C-alpha cells in the first residue's frame, strides 16, 4: 500500500513526463519546473527551519550569471556550467548565511535583503553581466557532449530530471534526522539548544543547501532561456518566491510546486489580458490566501482529506 506522498510522487512524475505530449507548451513548463525547484529550496528554509530569507533572489540570480558566463565565454558544457553556478550559489549561501543566522526574525530577513541588494548592484555594475541589458546568447550546447539540448523535448526532460533530483534531495533532507533537528529548531529553538544541538551549524547548513538548490534552479533557467538578466537578481523575485510558497502551502512537500505553477501560470495567462492589473490580482490573491486559507492550497487540501477520514 502506497502512502499519500508516494502517490503524489507518482502523479508528479507521470504528469511531468506526459505534459509536453498533451499540448502543454514545453518552454512554459520548463520555466515552471525551475521556479518550482526554487520555491522548494526556499521552503526548505522557511517551511522547515522557520527562517524567512528575503534575499533568495541573490542565489538564483548569481547562479544564472555564473552559469551563463561560464558556458558562453569559457565554452563549458551545460551540465558543468550548471554545476559551476550551483557551486557559486552554495559558496555565496555560506557567506550570506554565516552573517545572517546571527540574528533571527525580521533582522534575519533584513540582513538577507540587504546582502541581496548589494549583490544586485554588483551585477548592475559588472562588465560581464551586461548590466541592464543582461547576458544573452548563452548556447544550449550538448549534454555530456552527446544529447543536443537545442531540441526542446531533450531540454525539457533534462530540466525535469534536474527538478526531480533537487526535489528528492529536499524530500530526503526533510525526512532525515537532520531534517528533524531543523523542524525542532523551527518549533522551539531554545529547547533544541538545551538538548545540546549546535543550532547555528544546522541553520547554516540548511541555508547553504537552500542557496545551492536555488542556484541550481537559476543556472538551469539560464540554460533554458539562454540569458541571465537582472530580473532574477531583483528583490521582486525574493518576494515572488514567498508568494509561491505561501500560496502552495508552507511546510508541505508539494506546496511550493503547486504554488509555482499557479503563480507562473497566472502571470503567463493574465499578463497580456489585463496588463498592469496582474500585480493587483497577485496582491489580492496573496491577501485572500493569508486571510482565508493560511495553510495554502496543498495544506488546506491535506487537512480536508485527513478530516474526512
Amino acid at each position, binding site marked *: 500500500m502506497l502512502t499519500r506522498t508516494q502517490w503524489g510522487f507518482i502523479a508528479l512524475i507521470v504528469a511531468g513526463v506526459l505534459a509536453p505530449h498533451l499540448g502543454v507548451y514545453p518552454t512554459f513548463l520548463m520555466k515552471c519546473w525551475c521556479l518550482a525547484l526554487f520555491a522548494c529550496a526556499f521552503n526548505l528554509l522557511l517551511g522547515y527551519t522557520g527562517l524567512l530569507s528575503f534575499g533568495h533572489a541573490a542565489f538564483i540570480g548569481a547562479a544564472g550569471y555564473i552559469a551563463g558566463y561560464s558556458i558562453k565565454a569559457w565554452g563549458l558544457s551545460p551540465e558543468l556550467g550548471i554545476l559551476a553556478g550551483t557551486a557559486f550559489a552554495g559558496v555565496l549561501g555560506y557567506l550570506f548565511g554565516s552573517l545572517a543566522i546571527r540574528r533571527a526574525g525580521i533582522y534575519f530577513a533584513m540582513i538577507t535583503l540587504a546582502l541581496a541588494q548589494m549583490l544586485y548592484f554588483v551585477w548592475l555594475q559588472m562588465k560581464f553581466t551586461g548590466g541592464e*541589458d*543582461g547576458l544573452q546568447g548563452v548556447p544550449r550546447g550538448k549534454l555530456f557532449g552527446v544529447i543536443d539540448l537545442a531540441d526542446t523535448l531533450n531540454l525539457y526532460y533534462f530540466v525535469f530530471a534536474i527538478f526531480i533530483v533537487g526535489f528528492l534531495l529536499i524530500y530526503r533532507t526533510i525526512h532525515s534526522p537532520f531534517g528533524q533537528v531543523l523542524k525542532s529548531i523551527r518549533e522551539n529553538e531554545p529547547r533544541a539548544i538545551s538538548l545540546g544541538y549546535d543550532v547555528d551549524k544546522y541553520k547554516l547548513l540548511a541555508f547553504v543547501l537552500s542557496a545551492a538548490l536555488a542556484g541550481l534552479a537559476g543556472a538551469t533557467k539560464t540554460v533554458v*532561456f539562454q*540569458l541571465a538578466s537582472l*530580473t532574477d537578481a531583483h528583490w521582486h523575485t525574493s518576494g515572488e518566491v514567498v508568494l509561491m510558497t505561501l500560496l502552495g502551502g508552507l511546510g508541505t512537500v508539494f506546496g511550493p510546486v503547486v504554488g509555482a505553477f499557479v503563480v507562473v501560470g497566472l502571470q503567463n495567462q493574465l499578463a497580456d489580458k489585463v496588463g498592469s492589473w496582474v500585480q493587483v490580482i497577485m496582491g489580492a490573491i496573496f491577501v485572500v490566501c493569508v486571510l482565508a486559507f493560511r495553510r495554502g492550497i496543498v495544506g488546506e487540501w491535506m487537512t480536508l482529506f485527513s478530516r474526512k477520514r
Partner: protein
Amino acid sequence: MKRKLVSLAVAAALTLAPGALVAQQKGGLKLSDGVVKIGILTDMSGLYADLSGAGSITAAKMAIEDFRAQEKGNVFPIELVYGDHQNKGDVASNKAREWFERDKVDMIGDLVTTSTALAVMPIAKQANRITIVSGAASTLITGKNCTDTNVHYVYDTYALANGTGKAVVKQGGDSWFFLTADYAFGHSLEKDTSDVVKANGGKVLGAVRHPFPGTDFSSFLLKAQSSGAKVIGLANAGTDTTNSIKQAAEFGIMPKQSLAGLLMFLTDIHSLGLKTAQNMYLTEGFYWDFNAETRAWSKRYYDQHKRMPTMVQAGVYSSTMHYLKAVKAAGTDEAKAVMAKMKQTPVNDFFAKNARIRDDGRLVHDFYLLQVKKPEESKYPWDYYHVRQVIPAADAVGPAANSECPLMKK
C-alpha cells in the same frame, strides 16, 4: 465500437488537416502557414507603456488596415497578436519562443527596452523570423549583437547623443556637465556625448554619477549648478530623467543653465508639462507636427489612441507597413527573402524619406533637434517643440566604418 473508431479517425483527420496545408498558396503568395502573423511585444504596464505599449499596438493595427485598404482587400491573411514583456528579458524571451514555436508568428515588432530586444533577437535568428526593433535604444543592437534578421528602425543612443551634443554646442552651449545614471547605459551615453561635444570644440567640465534608479537628485544637481557649465547633460532615462528635470526646476537651475535630455520622448514632455520642461534641447527621430504629412497621419492616429504618437509608435506603423509591402513583393513570408526585399526597397512615407536599411539593420533616416516651447508659445494641445534643425541621416547615424557588426564587413 467500430463507429467510435471511425469518428475518432475523422476527428484525427480534421485536427491534422491544417498541418497538411502548410505552405499553401494564398493570394499568389507562399506563406509558411497560410497567414502572416505579426507580434507586438511591448511594455503594457510599466515605465515605457506610454511611449510604446498600447499606442504601438494601435499603430500596428492601423498599418494592417491601411495595407489592406491600399491593396483593395485583395491580400493574404494578416493577423496581429500582442504581449506584455514587462521590461524583463526572460519574459520577452519566453514569449518570443512561444510565438515562434507554437503560434507561428512571422515578425515581432516594437521591443521597447534594450534588454528585451537583445533577448529576442538571437531567438528570432535561430527560428529564422524577423525582428523590427522600434523601442530600444542601445547601439549594441546594430553593433556587436547585430543579427541578419533584425532591423533597428527608429533611433539609438548614438543618434540622440550625437544630435543633441553637436547641435547644442553649435548653438553656443559649449561647456557641459553630466548627470549620469551609474550603470553601463548611463556611462556609454555620457561617453558618446562627451566625445561629440569635444570634437565640436566644446568643453566637458565634469560629471556626477547618481545611483540607478534614483529619487533624490538634489546633491547631484547642486554640483552641476556650481560647476558653472552652460549645459547640463542628462545621461539617464525614464523616471530618472523626469525626476531630475523636476528637481532642477525647483532649484532654479534654468534658465541660467540649460538642460539637455539625451534620451527623451514626447510623452515625457507631456507628463512634465511645458512649464517645467521649457527650453530643453532634445533629439528625436520623428515629431508629429513636423509637416503636413506627419500631421495628417498623426491626426488619424490621435482619433484612435487619443494621444499624439511618439517616434516609437510612428516607427511601429511605418515598419509594419514596410514589412507587409516586402512580404508582398517577395511573394513569401520566409525571413531571409523578406529581409532582402526590406533592405532593397527604400522607406518613403511620413516617417522617413528615402531611408535605407543598412547591412547591420540600421534604418538610416533624418533626425530632428528639438527645443521645448515655452507655455505661452504653445498654441494647441501637443504643440510642444520648436524644430531647431533637421539632422541629415548621414550625420545622425553612426558611421558604417566604425561598426562592430560583422555583417557590415563585406
